[in-house]
């Protein structure tokens, strides 16, 4: 049902964005040719008919051809998906791991100068818009220092239909700046959450008991406290994936990262309706899947929370 609604929204709304006909015809086209084209594209049919046609095709994974690339949309999206998934994955790993480590550190060393420094400087990261952080990183690391590439994925290796940048040096180097740009917000969020949870857990009776039993601090932090905070942290990080996908649009635009986000934004500028609606469906689909996994993970990890309603109150 969620998907159906998403499909409706994605399709109907984009009918209003602009007129694709202008882009498709060169400056020489005449009025009559224009009208003929509108007819051929089915742009003159009633909107609900266009929508049902679209739905039917979507069920069959047929999104038609992109108005712009003249390639099947499904093919386009599949060829662009690896780039976005690799970017999202590395930024999520970066964000969560760094976030957890820094979160634990700032909780343990609560009130120390370094902790406060980390906490406040992390706020700077979320107080600037993503695109600006990206441009500043390019300026510093590509233009001034000339250390890292400013655009694209570098060399990629084809593994079947999947193209990966993880296996080449230039591929990994190209990943660094976009991942930082995209992962910064996640990192701050995870760090602050970890810190709060950790502070809470450290006050619990069983931790006090562990202290009393003379366990080393390291053992207490990593074997007793950490597992208890990971559940909410991972849940929140998972639920944040929606915004990761959204911010990937910006990161991909800034770094000319050839993923689906860039595909989408180009589609918007070009009024490429099939690509836009397919992208929105994809986002909706991804979100439903993520939600499902988070729910399942929750039930698996913590049997006390079988009532999924309770999750909402965490």
């Amino acid at each position, binding site marked *: 049902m969620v998907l159906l609604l998403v499909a409706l929204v994605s399709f109907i709304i984009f009918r209003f964005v*602009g007129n694709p006909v202008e882009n498709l015809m060169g400056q020489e086209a005449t009025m009559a040719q224009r009208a003929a084209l509108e007819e051929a594209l089915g742009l003159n049919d009633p909107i609900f008919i266009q929508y049902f046609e679209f739905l039917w095709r979507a069920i069959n994974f047929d999104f038609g051809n992109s108005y712009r690339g003249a390639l099947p949309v499904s093919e386009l999206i599949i060829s662009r998906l690896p780039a976005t998934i690799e970017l999202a994955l590395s930024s999520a790993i970066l964000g969560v791991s760094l976030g957890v480590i820094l979160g634990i550190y700032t909780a343990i060393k609560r009130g120390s100068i370094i902790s406060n420094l980390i906490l406040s400087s992390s706020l700077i990261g979320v107080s600037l818009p993503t*695109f600006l952080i990206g441009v500043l990183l390019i300026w510093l690391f590509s233009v001034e220092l000339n250390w890292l590439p400013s655009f694209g994925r570098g060399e990629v290796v084809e593994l079947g239909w999947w193209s990966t940048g993880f296996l080449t040096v230039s591929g990994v180097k190209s990943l660094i700046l976009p991942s930082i740009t995209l992962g910064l917000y996640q990192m701050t969020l995870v760090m602050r959450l970890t810190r709060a949870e950790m502070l809470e857990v450290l006050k619990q009776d069983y931790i006090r008991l562990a202290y009393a039993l003379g366990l080393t601090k390291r053992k207490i932090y990593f074997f007793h406290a950490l597992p208890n905070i990971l559940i909410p942290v991972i849940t929140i990080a998972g639920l944040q994936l929606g915004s990761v996908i959204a911010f990937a649009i910006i990161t991909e635009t800034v770094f000319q990262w050839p993923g689906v986000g860039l595909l989408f934004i180009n589609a918007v500028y070009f009024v490429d309706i099939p690509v836009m609606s397919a992208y*929105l469906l994809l986002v909706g689909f991804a*979100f439903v899947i993520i939600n499902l996994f988070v729910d399942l993970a929750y039930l698996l990890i913590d049997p006390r929370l079988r009532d999924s309603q309770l999750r909402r109150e965490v």
Partner: protein
Amino acid sequence: MLAVGSFFVFTTIILLAIFANYLAPHTPFDPSTLNLMNGFTPPMEPNEFTGQVFLMGTDDQGRDLFSTILYGLRISLFVGLMAVLLAMVLGVILGLISGFSGGWLDIIIMRLADIQMTFPSILVAMLVYGVARGMLPPELRYEMSITVLIISIGLSEWVPFARTVRGSTLVEKEKDYITSARMLGLKRFSIMTRHILPNILSPVLVIATITFALAIIAEATLSFLGVGVPTTKPSLGTLIRIGQDFLFSGEWWILLFPALTLLALALSINLFGDWLRDMLNPKIH
């Protein structure tokens, strides 16, 4: 300390924005007062053609940056504030209904929240913007941009409010005083507004502060994607978008001053929010 400092910075910025028309030496939103030849004047240096001097320099159209930042702040703050209000009102109402009534209404609202999460503010804004643009005359472009920004940011941020309010409502409604209020035959509406609402205000306030900072940054991000206010009446975000074009060319002031203003604003709100959270959260103390 930090909280006091950030509160001070925040208040200063607000006051600067409110009294922009008295404080700003120029009127950057009135095109007839602009002189293109003043373009790209560095801060505190006389312009090579007109000889005029500007505190923070000028942008590519010869607008005094200091004045433009003050006027731009107004737009950014207004958008942020209205978006938060919209999100808060929507979220609190839906959360209250959801938590208090339960049942199918609860399920529908929470499903709606899930769908909402699918469309982050950027996507919502581009959708709403596309529709509004197609339907409204261009004369209303400026008003429309602002409204679209408010609606799209507001729409995408109501979920945290609703979830929090719903959670607290679920807890509160089992408490004895609500049960007794019900037994006394009080109407649902008055129970909700008079008894539950005051008890959930503090978490709502914390979320509102953080959302406010988020909204201001979202406005900047949307300007980058071309969905923001027109460049003839730039907001802080639009100014930053314009400024980043001149990062490599040496006209650093066009980016630096608006970016610093945004940073100071968002940072002070975030720090203030942190402090508020710690104050209102009894668990940590």
